[in-house]
């Protein structure tokens, strides 16, 4: 291993160094002014993000267990941007009295999970994938249970850790069979060796259900709502945006490379799962009162849409999916940003609490409305483009009826997104949430999200870049 090889896995290494740095700095900072860690950590991560954009060299390490390509780099950068915004938005909440002494933990754990995701994305064999998966999952549970004195938070933690353990158990069982039938863990080898022997199908389905758990596809989604509701807002947004996005990326890579030979099979699986997911997600989202829970189900429905992109099984599909994840990150972060800002100030997180919000906090409610429209796929905000391209890719494979069902579901989803808009703009309220000024971090975070929501759609370059990278991945 020479120095160059380390440069290949730059993202991971730098992030690990960052974690250690935070640890060290934290030791030097006295308990009284732990809050200083917030700017430090955020700026550190900002640096990391910027470095991430510097031209990276692609290559393969550890005999193919780790590989880095422009596409994976792009995925990691997308995640980084998301994380930056999440961090900015969580500042206000971290500054609270009860969280003071755990600020650094928050950063370190979050980044640890991020490292895990990096490894998953760049993994070239299932061993690395599994390691990354666990690294991304186990610390997440502690994040969910971050506020240890809250029963809800604890409950969320235990629910997450147990069900994720179960899912990774099943996933592993699948992996073991893959190993048994292919005699290797390396993607390249498996790809060539993979057929449609019952055992292999079984293995694939076990593996898939393990991944589906991460993206929370129906029927592997049930943990989502509870964990999202129980976990602190910012953790929830991290869950719903970053971790989901990462798992989507990995699913793309795995499906398009390793299991490319049995595409005909997993297409059927996705077809069914996507329909169920959209429908169930919408049905549950319809009657939620708690915004976090509401967003949880909406994100499930979104995951259902996302599968349509995968169904294309071609460059268009790949591009569309990655693009959609990007759009989704911004739209969802816009929504969560508002929720967390309001939660940090007032601790309210029910839709009914938002009645008449526009009267008092016009900007927040405007951003909320934009995010809602973006999630519902209404032009001119980015969501429209994301959905359009997703459905295009599905249609390119001739799934017109699926597209039709999906668009109808989008209409249903519009209903509950509009309910939030209605609450803020139309409903009357005697004592609405009073006007407040949120701190600089939050505002920056919100502005970033808003910009993203607006720009990404119209700025076709982004889409073109993704396309240019997407080509050639499919072998």
């Amino acid at each position, binding site marked *: 291993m020479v120095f160059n090889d380390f440069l290949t896995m730059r993202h991971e290494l730098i992030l690990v160094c960052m974690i250690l740095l935070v640890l060290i700095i934290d030791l030097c900072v006295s308990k009284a002014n732990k809050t200083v860690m917030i700017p430090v950590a955020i700026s550190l991560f900002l640096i990391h993000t910027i470095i991430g954009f510097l031209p990276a060299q692609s290559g393969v390490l550890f005999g193919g267990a780790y590989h880095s390509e422009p596409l994976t780099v792009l995925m990691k950068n997308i995640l980084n941007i998301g994380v930056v915004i999440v961090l900015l938005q969580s500042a206000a909440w971290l500054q609270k009295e009860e969280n003071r002494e755990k600020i650094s933990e928050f950063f370190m754990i979050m980044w640890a999970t991020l490292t895990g995701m990096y490894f998953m994305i760049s993994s070239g064999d299932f061993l690395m994938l599994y390691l990354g998966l666990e690294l991304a999952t186990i610390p997440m549970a502690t994040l969910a249970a971050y506020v240890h004195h809250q029963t809800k938070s604890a409950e969320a933690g*235990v*629910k997450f850790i*147990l*069900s994720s353990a*179960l*899912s990774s158990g*099943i996933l592993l069982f699948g992996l073991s069979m893959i190993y048994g039938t292919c005699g290797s863990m390396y993607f390249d080898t498996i790809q060539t060796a993979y057929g449609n022997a*019952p055992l292999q*199908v*079984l293995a694939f*389905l*076990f593996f*898939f*259900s393990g991944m589906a*758990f991460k993206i929370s596809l*129906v*029927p*592997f989604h*049930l*943990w989502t*709502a*509870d964990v999202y509701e129980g976990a602190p807002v910012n953790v929830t947004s991290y869950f719903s945006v970053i971790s989901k996005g990462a798992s989507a990326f990995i699913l793309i890579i795995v499906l398009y490379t390793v299991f490319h030979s049995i595409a005909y*099979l997993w297409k*059927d*699986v996705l077809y*069914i799962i996507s329909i169920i997911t959209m429908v*169930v997600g*919408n*049905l*549950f989202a*319809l*009657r939620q009162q708690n915004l976090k829970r509401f967003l949880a189900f909406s994100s499930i429905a979104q995951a259902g849409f996302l599968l349509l992109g995968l169904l294309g099984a071609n460059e268009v599909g790949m591009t569309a999916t990655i693009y959609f994840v990007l759009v989704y990150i911004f739209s969802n972060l816009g929504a969560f940003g508002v929720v967390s800002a309001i939660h940090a100030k007032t601790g309210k997180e029910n839709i009914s609490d938002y009645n008449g919000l526009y009267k008092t906090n016009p900007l927040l409610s405007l951003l909320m409305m934009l995010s809602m429209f973006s999630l519902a796929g209404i032009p001119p905000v980015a969501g429209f483009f994301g959905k359009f391209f997703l459905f295009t890719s599905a249609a390119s494979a001739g799934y017109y009826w699926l597209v039709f069902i999906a668009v109808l579901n989008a209409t*249903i989803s519009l209903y509950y997104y509009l309910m939030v808009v209605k609450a803020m703009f139309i409903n009357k309220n005697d004592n609405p949430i009073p006007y407040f000024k949120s701190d600089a971090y939050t505002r920056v975070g919100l502005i970033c999200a808003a910009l993203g929501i607006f720009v990404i759609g119209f700025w076709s370059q982004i889409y073109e870049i993704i396309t240019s990278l997407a080509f050639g991945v499919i072998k």
Partner: protein
Amino acid sequence: MVNYAYTLLIPLIPLAVFLFLGLTGHKYKPIVSGIIGTLGLGIGAILSYATAISYFFVNHVDGTKLESIKAFEIPWLHITENLTISLGSLIDPISVMMLVVITTVSLMVHIYSIGYMKGEKGYHRFFAFLSLFTFSMLGLVMATNIFQMYIFWELVGLSSYLLIGFYYTKPSAVAASKKAFIVTRFADLGFLIGILMLSFFTQTFDFQTLTNPNGPAIANNYGTGFMGLSLITWALLFIFMGGAGKSAMFPLHIWLPDAMEGPTPVSALIHAATMVVAGVYLVARLFPVYALTGGDALHVVAWVGGFSSLFAAVIACTQTDIKRVLAYSTMSQIGYMMLALGVSGYGGHDGLGFMAANFHLFTHAMFKALLFLGAGAVIHAVHSNEMGDMGGLRKYLPITHITFLIACLTIAGVPPFSGFWSKDEILVAAWHHDKVLFIIEFLVAGLTAFYMFRLYYNIFWNKDTHYHHTPHESPLVMTIPLMILAFGAVVSGFLPFHKMVTSDGMAIESHIDFAVAIPSVLIGLIGIAVATVMYRKPGSLPDKIAGTFKNFYKWAYHKFYMDEVYLFVTKKIIFRYISAPLAWFDRHVVDASMNGIANTVDATSKSVRGFQSGRIQQYGYVFVVGAILLVLLFIYIF
């Protein structure tokens, strides 16, 4: 060939007057608008007289054909490559005749109204509407193509609506105007469908092409299309439906009596002299097509006309509202004209009926306008429409009395008044064509004389009613038109119509056929005599007679319950059994099904919430089962 392009001014001047008065009328003293309107029409009248003289006499050599001249035409709308709607003015015998009629009567009515409407609010509005009507009517008669005619046909309907509803705060007037518009509109639907069919077959709207004996309408044989009648016949019948509506032929007549809610001059202008004869004019305009395509349509025309005339005459005998009597007499007289057209043939002496119809149209315009204006003068004097409130007025209203008497004699067909000549021609035509129709018309002649003189006596003789303020003769501005029209009523019979207005433009020789003339005069006299006996002096005789024909009288008095029938159809059937159910259907079926979708979604979402039980183990259970289901699905099914 003379250039008649200036005839364009005849309709355009009233239009200008209408716009001017409508937009700025309220700014001036009422009288100003009256004068402006009258002047405008005066010019129009002079122009049309000039046209008539130059067309019939100056520029026409006896014995030659009276050509129809397209004086002016501009395209208005291209619909298909063949079908173009254009606006223009057509100069031929009937249009010129109508020009004269309309401008004359309208001018008279304008002058009369200056006095009659004095002190009414909305004075300028009244004159504006009068001008609008005149404009539309002139445009109608000068139409170069059937679609232009339809356009102005509708406009005429509108102005009639506006004028009937002139007293728009009076519910009865509002109702009447609405009724008039909708009934005629319904008839116009027939007209429109007729036009559609005609234009579909002939690919033209133009009258000259249509009426050309070698043109597509007549030359091409469209065979028997539907129910044994050729499609062209159906088209003509539909068109006649339009005409019947405007001309208040049975069963589309019900709007006419109610239309008397309008100011009396309006009744004189629209519902006696001009608009109601539009139907006759329409048939006359398309006459060659009617006559030369089998003539089945003409039979319908004849019988509808005949029946209507009898029907109306019977009702007229029982009415007590003087304007309604006149209204029914109008209907009956128009029935005459229709019948005349119906019994006519094309060309030569067969075309007698055609000539007679137009002749009667002309004379009728004169004396019926006179009658209405006279009635107006009476009403103006006693402030009532009811015969019961009148009587012995000859002392108070000498001029009105005389002119009214002249009019009655004219309509009763007493020689040498004009009515005699025109009616005689019609009877002759009927005699030659169909005896049954002749008998009907013969009876109607008698009835006409009877009810007119019943009216006359009830107003001017009979009992000496005591008026709490003595009625006085109307001002000159009102009486002069009466005299002028009376003059017209007397002399217009001597016009050489047989030279001027004939089916094919060639002059025909006409002579008094004494075999028909004498009996018709006699029955007229009999009618007058009976009326004299019954109504000259107050007496119980009328009631006795009414008593003897109790039921029949009752039916006739209630206009044979036509209104009730219509009310039943519109209110009950259409409104209650079509619209209301439709509205209900729309709310509770169509709309409900849309909402139903939403509700089902909502209900489902309520019912599935149990899945999210909040118990980890159940989550795990679903997880595992889901995975296993997938496996089963894909290993054993695919």
